[in-house]
């Protein structure tokens, strides 16, 4: 791991939700780090806790039911969990920003685009740098919205979905953040627009050298964009690997299943592979490995104890009894 240049490091983060039925462990003991300028993919099916991980970093876990109860989130070596609301607010939108999934509902339909972009500057004391309107036009220019001088006065409902997402990306990078979290930024868009937006993100990353945490369930996006992959399952990270290693040599049975379930162009197959069964209920997760019930190679120990994290290579870790010492016995 790039310990020297880590800008973000999570250590044993747990984010729980209290409901009337009990505690939902949405994020359960997660550790990973992101280096400067890296693009890391966080992969997993919906409900696996990907978005909760990102909201935990932002300090925006829905209150009052949800709370990050344990762990450390180190940003430039400082623990974000120890910061107060105002300090977090100043970091958000400035040093760390985030892009949400659905651009059409992420913009307020009855406030002008100019106003909504302007907020990013206004509340981080950036307005001294020039006229707010000019800065907003600059943002739209950077993300290639056509005729930004006219469009800046429009309302989001006059924008197309792709333009809305461009605007949101623009707001995300406006203050030159060190970390940009992108929560499935292309899922809600047309396939043709998806490619454009991804290309834009890559370009933006090269220009600003911001680290990106790309949350997605689309392995194609990961292959195209990311340098490293984190696989999440039922609130836990089960495998961490560089992207090439991950595609060539996935180790966790769930990760293998994920890769197998991607259709490959030109390869003939009778039917698409799919992993049998459903992910476990996070209300009462099984004590052992959470994938055990769906795993074809499950052993007795898998249901009894959670597997430790094993390093297969320096930058390739997996949590599975197939690779741990106890499991081999």
């Amino acid at each position, binding site marked *: 791991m790039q310990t020297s240049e880590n800008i973000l490091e999570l250590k044993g983060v747990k984010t729980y939700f209290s409901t009337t039925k009990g505690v939902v462990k949405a994020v359960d003991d997660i550790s990973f780090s992101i280096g400067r300028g890296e693009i890391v993919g966080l992969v997993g099916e919906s409900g696996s806790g990907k978005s909760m991980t990102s909201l935990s970093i*932002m300090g*925006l876990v829905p209150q*009052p039911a949800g709370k990050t109860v344990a762990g450390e989130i180190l940003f430039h070596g400082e623990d974000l969990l120890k910061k107060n*609301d105002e300090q977090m*607010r*100043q*970091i*958000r*939108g*400035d040093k760390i*920003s*985030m892009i*949400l999934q*659905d651009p059409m*509902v*992420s*913009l*307020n*339909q*009855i*406030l*002008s685009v100019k106003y909504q972009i302007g*907020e*990013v500057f206004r*509340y*981080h004391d950036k307005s001294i740098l020039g006229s707010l309107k000019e800065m907003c036009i600059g943002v739209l220019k950077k993300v290639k919205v056509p005729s930004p001088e006219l469009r800046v006065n429009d*309302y989001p*409902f*006059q924008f197309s979905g792709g333009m809305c997402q461009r605007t*949101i990306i623009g*707001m995300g990078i406006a203050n030159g953040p060190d970390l940009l979290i992108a929560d499935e930024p292309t899922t809600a868009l047309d396939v043709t627009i998806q490619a454009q937006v991804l290309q834009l993100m890559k370009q933006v990353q090269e220009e600003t050298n911001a680290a990106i945490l790309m949350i997605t369930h689309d392995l194609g996006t990961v292959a195209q964009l990311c340098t490293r992959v984190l696989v999440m399952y039922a609130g836990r990270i089960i495998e961490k690997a560089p992207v090439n290693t991950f595609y060539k040599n996935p180790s966790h049975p769930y990760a293998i299943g994920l890769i197998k379930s991607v259709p490959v162009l030109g390869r003939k197959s009778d039917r698409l592979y799919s992993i049998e069964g459903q992910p476990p209920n996070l209300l009462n997760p099984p004590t052992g490995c959470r994938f055990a019930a769906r795993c074809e190679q499950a052993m007795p120990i898998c249901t009894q104890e959670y597997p430790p994290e094993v390093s297969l290579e320096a930058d390739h870790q997996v949590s599975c009894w197939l690779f741990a010492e106890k499991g081999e016995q």
Partner: protein
Amino acid sequence: MQRYIIKRFLFGLLTIFSTITVVFFVMRGLNPADPTAIMLPPDATPELQQRLKVKFGLDKPLIQQYGIYLKNGIVGDFGESFRYSEPALDLVVERIPATLQLTVSSLFFSVLIGMIVGITSGVKRDSLFDRVGRQLSLIGMAVPSFAIALFFILTFGVMWRIFPISGRGGLDHFVLPVVSMSLYGIAAFIRLSRSSMIEVLKSEYVVMAHIKGVPKIKIILVHALKNGCIPVITILGLVIPGLVMGSVVIETIFSWPGVGNLVMVSIFARDYPVVQVIVIFISILIVMSNLMVDILYAYLDPRIRYQ
């Protein structure tokens, strides 16, 4: 935007005209009772009754009466009151200020207090303030305004004698009528703005604003308030007709010399010219307030403005 407002305005005129027509034919055509019978003593001769009918133009065919009514109406002549032998229009117009004072101030307090409490409740959901406010608004919506009015008369007027309980005069005369008329509206607006606030605060664009680092107070005052107001304004259009009904009750109880009081007297006296003018007044009031709601709506929501 202009086309939208002109369209709403023309629709309003059409509503007023059709209301006048419906009311005319129902009151004069379907009505079994002969108004001249009420005006005269029981032992009046048929000739006298006939002369009275001619005087008020009631002897002509209905459709002709309608034509005359419209023709005179354009120049502001809506006939003479059967009861007071005064022009019906004058009778109503001199009472309009009293009614408007009552309804407008009640509406003002309902919206102001209801929205402040409701928004605070929605933002501080499940706090003590929210729970108390929710219970009070439930009770507020379960008590009819006439019962509240009588209860206030009993306590503040009869037992403690703090406020006057009848008629119109200084500011103190306003207290009991306005408060008893506002309570139901306050309760309704608390519930509405609370749930609308909760809905808005859950939305993605509020999360997005947090992500941008917008201070919480600004999120509430700009994003949530503006969006949360839209359903409240929609309901405003439905509340205003109810307010007219409320003013009839409150004016009757507090002997308030307004239109609501007059309409009750006129209905029981079968004083149709007056009732008709009041109906026209009510429909103009409602059309105008709907128009104001539409304009407010367009002002808040650019999606309507740019249609």
